[in-house]
């Protein structure tokens, strides 16, 4: 049986103002597991991460971290946890390397203890930090004061500091914000390595394109509530056979509205129902048709193989086609289906 490094039972948090940050939830993360907590702003994912980092204390329920209940001073627990918050705070007058070493050395007394242990820790940290500076392409600026770093560089340094300590529990809040593709690649590799070595990783994000595919399990959060907690594969199965074909019609066909909604905007049934739609639903492979007034969204169980028949049908009805877009559904669509709210991540189309 896999050891649970995080075990929350009915854990919730209410802010001093009375606002609920997180409704009581049962949640566990095993050794070697990567969990992505996904939700829009204000959904409770950062609150969850901060509870796990012991930055906040649960107002209801209980939490065990690394096999010990969080009670009294969490100092000893914190040594096994690395938390990269969404705000890249550093000591700006020091160089990147000095910052990295400082935050790593703060963990040394527990790890080292004796003089020899502390020396060994210093040596280990120096090697690890050098590796991470290379991996995140920060090698050229390691001797530069952090005050001169760009936002992306400071984000990378923050992640590097969290990873340098090789923690048992790694907590990352919006880790890919501000990262370039090499940085994202390096992070993915390091997160995978941490899990492979038996660590647990929890990532808070509203990205549905990249991070979920690093994870073993997805936790959908919405307005502080858990909407879904399932393995990625299970959620992906729910999306199978649901290709979205978005067709914008030209001319006057199907465009009773003088200001039609752009393709993909989820305001169905604007304008008058199009007379062609009932016939379209009879095409094999068409799961559903939504009329947005001037544009039609078809859900296909045959993927883009449905396109010739769809186009043929519309042309036979005298329609002028201005634009066709085929989009495979992602976790954002599933989230929207479950909650009725879009995630609104930066990479998502409007």
């Amino acid at each position: 049986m896999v050891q649970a490094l995080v075990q929350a039972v009915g854990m919730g948090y209410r802010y001093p103002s009375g606002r609920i940050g997180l409704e009581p939830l049962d949640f566990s993360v095993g050794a070697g597991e990567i969990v992505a907590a996904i939700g829009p702003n204000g959904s409770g994912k950062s609150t969850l991460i901060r509870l796990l980092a012991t930055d906040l204390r649960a107002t209801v329920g209980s939490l065990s971290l690394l096999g010990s209940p969080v009670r009294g001073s969490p100092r000893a627990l914190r040594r096994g946890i690395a938390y990269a918050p969404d705000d890249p705070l550093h000591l700006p007058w020091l160089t990147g390397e000095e910052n990295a070493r400082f935050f790593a050395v703060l963990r040394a007394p527990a790890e080292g203890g004796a003089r020899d242990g502390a020396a060994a820790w210093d040596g280990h940290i120096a090697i690890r930090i050098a590796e991470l500076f290379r991996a995140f392409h920060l090698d050229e600026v390691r001797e530069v004061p952090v005050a001169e770093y760009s936002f992306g560089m400071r984000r990378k340094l923050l992640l590097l500091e969290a990873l340098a300590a090789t923690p048992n529990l790694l907590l990352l809040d919006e880790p890919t914000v501000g990262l370039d593709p090499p940085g994202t690649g390096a992070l993915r590799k390091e997160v995978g390595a941490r899990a492979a070595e038996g660590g647990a990783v929890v990532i808070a994000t509203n990205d549905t394109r990249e991070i979920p595919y690093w994870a073993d399990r997805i936790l959908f959060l919405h307005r502080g509530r858990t909407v879904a907690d399932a393995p990625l594969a299970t959620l992906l199965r729910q999306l199978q056979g649901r290709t979205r074909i978005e067709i914008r019609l030209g001319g006057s066909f199907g465009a009773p509205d003088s200001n039609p909604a752009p393709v993909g905007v989820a305001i169905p049934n604007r304008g008058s129902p199009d007379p062609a739609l009932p016939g379209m639903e009879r095409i094999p492979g068409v799961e559903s048709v939504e009329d947005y007034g001037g544009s039609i969204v078809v859900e296909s169980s045959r993927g883009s193989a449905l396109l010739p028949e769809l186009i043929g049908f519309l042309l036979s009805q005298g329609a002028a086609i201005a634009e066709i877009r085929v989009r495979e559904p992602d976790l954002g669509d599933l989230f929207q289906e479950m909650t009725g709210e879009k995630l609104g991540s930066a990479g998502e189309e409007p």
Partner: protein
Amino acid sequence: MSLPIWRIEWRIAIRRRRLLAFNVGIPLLLVVPLSFGGAPAYHASSAYTMLFVLFGTFGSAIPLLREGDGGPLRRILLTGFPEPAFVTERVLAGSALDLLQLFPAMALVLGAGRAGTDVWVAAIPALILAFVAANLVGLWVAALARSIAEGALLAAVVSLFLLHGSGVFRTPAPDSWGAILESVLPYRALHETFLAGTGGLTEAPMPAGLLVPAVTTALLFAVTVGCSSKLLERISDPIR
């Protein structure tokens, strides 16, 4: 012992050379007109003591409040670094830096007053004691205040009360409660050193006279270290 907080405080101080120069230069500029302007010893020594104590208290409280308010203090605590060690290293580093930055001003005062060797010998422990106490008071102020402005006000008010209790603004009647308070508070020795250095006292304060305020300061240090977890939690609380 790697003493990471002590080392980082020094490294930051050395890296911020302009600030270091200001912290040395401004006290010098402030004491020059008093030292060479013929100010009466009692008034001048009160002004010097106030300057040194406020410098130490503000220098401890304000950076802590700034680091707690969206600064790296929370990050440091979340690494699991022991709070008692943080407080100890931080107070000692702050006091040592204050000593480095204000010693030139003190040397100028004592030099201008043609102070004897006995005054110079008494000056160093008095200065150390005052700065350690001021740094401890600054930490408590940072924990009680909710903003930098509030911290500045509170630091000034608390320091002025302690200075008053230390006999800086008036001499308490012998055998009164005021006299007992004066003997235990940590700023009296500094005041008397300045008085002796400017000719207001004929003798330098005796080293034995430092014992009681040293015990008071040590007690305050012990209580602060004992409460370090709660104090730092308050200073760095993101939702205060």
